[in-house]
């Protein structure tokens, strides 16, 4: 059984995001970039399934310029077997990403497509769903537990007030939620080995894909600065302020 795992290169979650002065985008110059945490959980899940003997090959794919090879290598250090970088100079929309991944799936014929539920930069939570639609295969989003039994995937999802478990035949798309697992640390020897694992580069023309650019980024605005607080002398003053200034009661 083969798993295809998509990883996205995003600004590291520790970095305070800064908007460019012209508001055209977020400033990424020389900031630390990492695998999107949800994608990392997808990689970890694939590795655990491989360790459990359920799957035997993990293919890691990322879309972007050469720099995203860093994230592919990081995923290979966690336990991926080989990588594919789809060369793409611009940031494609969710639908374009799904189209590219669907195309890769045509080549790879993986049984399990594991994706993060969303990326922490664009927060779309769309790609996995679109990919399942394009492939006309079942999907289970926001997985908090995954079990493979024969040709069926049992996926547990956290819903309001409880857990929902769905079952679906493979091949299928699963997107991962935060509590599915806790990704491991990459050990030094594995990082070294990962540098020698195969990594193929494909370009959009080879895949026969023209980006639709169906979503345009108009502007990015920083949130309003928080106003300083003030101390009140009495409960009465507080109530007065809540009622007349903040108008919340």
């Amino acid at each position, binding site marked *: 059984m083969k798993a295809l795992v998509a990883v996205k290169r995003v600004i590291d979650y520790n970095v*305070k995001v800064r908007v460019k002065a012209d508001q055209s985008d977020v400033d990424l110059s020389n900031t*630390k970039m990492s695998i999107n945490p949800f994608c990392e959980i997808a990689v970890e899940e694939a590795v655990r399934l491989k360790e459990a003997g359920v799957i035997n090959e993990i293919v890691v794919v990322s879309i972007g310029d050469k720099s995203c090879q860093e994230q592919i290598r990081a995923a290979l250090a966690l336990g991926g077997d080989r990588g594919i970088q789809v060369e793409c100079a611009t940031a494609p929309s969710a639908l374009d990403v799904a189209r590219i991944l669907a195309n890769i799936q045509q080549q790879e014929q993986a049984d399990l497509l594991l994706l993060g539920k969303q990326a922490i930069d664009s927060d779309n939570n769309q790609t996995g769903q679109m990919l399942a639609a394009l492939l006309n295969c079942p999907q289970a989003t926001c997985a908090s537990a995954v079990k493979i039994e024969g040709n069926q995937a049992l996926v547990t999802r956290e819903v309001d007030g409880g857990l929902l478990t769905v079952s679906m035949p493979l091949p299928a798309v699963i997107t991962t939620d935060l509590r599915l697992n806790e990704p491991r640390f990459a050990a030094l020897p594995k990082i070294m080995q990962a540098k020698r694992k195969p990594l193929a580069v494909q370009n959009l023309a080879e895949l026969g894909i023209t980006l639709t650019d169906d979503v345009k980024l108009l502007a990015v605005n920083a949130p309003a600065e928080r106003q300083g607080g003030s101390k009140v002398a009495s409960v009465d003053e507080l109530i007065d302020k809540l009622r007349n200034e903040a108008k919340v009661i």
Partner: protein
Amino acid sequence: MEREVMSFDVVIVGAGVTGLAAACRLKQLAQEHGQEITVCVIEKGSEVGAHILSGAVMDPKALNELFPDWEQRGAPLHTPASEDQIVWLRDAKQHIQIPNWMAPKTMHNQGNYLISLGNLCRWLAEQAEALGVEIFPGFPAAEIVYHDNGAVRGILTGDMGVDKDGQPKSGYIPGMILEGKFTLFAEGSRGHLGKQLMEKFALNAGKDPQHYAIGIKELWDIPAEQHQPGLVIHGSGWPLTDDSNGGFFLYHTDNQQVAVGLIVDLNYRHPGLSPFDEFQRMKHHPVLSQYLKGGKRVCYGARAITKGGFNSLPKMTFPGGLLLGCDAGTLNFSRIKGSHTAMKSGLLAAEAVLDAILNDEVEATTFTDRFQQSWLYEELFSSRHFGPAIHKFGAFWGGAFNTLDQNLFGGNLPIQLRDQTHDHQQLKTSAECQPKVYPKADGLLSFDKLSSVYLSNTNHEEDQPCHLRLLDPELPYQVNIPLYQEPAQRYCPAGVYEVIEEDGQPKLQINGQNCLHCKTCDIKDMGQNIQWCPPEGGGGPNYPNM
């Protein structure tokens, strides 16, 4: 415990300019000699450059030697220094501009570049990897590993996945031994392993005590009409008065940004002094605010500086390794520059280590000769009076002395100036001093500590042992708090140390997650009771463009 071992010819601790320059040079030399030499660099920051903080105006001298074609290779040296200004701040409003001929020659910056040292390291790492160097960011060197005969064998990387009580969590990975024929220690100022080596091999025997400063830096986006790329401003005076020395810098770099910072010598005497607050109020001086007003602060950080210079420079070789760059103390304080000298120490080390490997020697003994015949030695020797003069006479008269010494005597005034007192022995008690009161931050030019630390992108996994350890947990209650009102609260630029009240008793709380890895506490604590230890790999600041 049985540890896994990985072997290389050379293991380098720290992916700063020193370590990366040494790594590149080793690979270049190996190619020239037709040798295969394996080199690995480990770095505690989450990525190369994440923990690098410097002004910086760089003299490209050492870089020219390493990569004469650095410009074609795209090195991030974009802004040549175009104008030097040196000012003396008389008080909160007034200043005197010192004419260039009156300033020490070492302060002139023609031919130098205004850079981000972090970005230079990122670029150097690319060059090193292209030459075949293995670089592992996110892995601190926790301990030194020795051979039975006492020579350095290598280092042990830190364990990953240990909880706050020291117990392994799920996903625990024990650290492993990286061994090499030679291990180069290039941790930067006050490296925790460098400190151990100094003691183990008595490297500083017969040398003056090492001296340090703390540098606090901010990066600002400023309005285009206030920006003059290449303008370099240095100054001293207000707000540092009476018993503290230091100086500020303001560099107009590229991208419509300025780097502004204050350096405070850690031999200051007033326990109430707060370098952070001095820096914040200093930005209100018209000399600085004329550029900063209307701008936006985008990054903040701090780092200790090893500034003892020639008189304090330890022996740099020992069996199995070398101590290099700011880890040893190669910075030239008279030029407020350490990058070119640190790099040069790395280049010389690479040459000496290759020699030693080819001749099967355990100590790279040719380093000392190479060093003494280099411009690095010449530069440090001729600046040996600079620091002691300022410690002895203060910034103004010490500065005047340095002009005389550097411009007329070329650093050879026939006198001996030494400073024999350790920085941590200098503090007076609170009872001997008038309390210091700092103005409140205005949120435009000056800011509080926590919102500043926020801009350093620092982060540490919460569930891990505190990486700032007290040798004697009672000492703060016997000495630091009653006699000095715990100065760590004020010299720490990240708010790591807090004295809170618990059941009516003072309690020292250590907020290790805020730590910027500047090492000031390890240096300045009166009892040398605070031990900075490396946290879990990848922890600490994530500086962009610093």
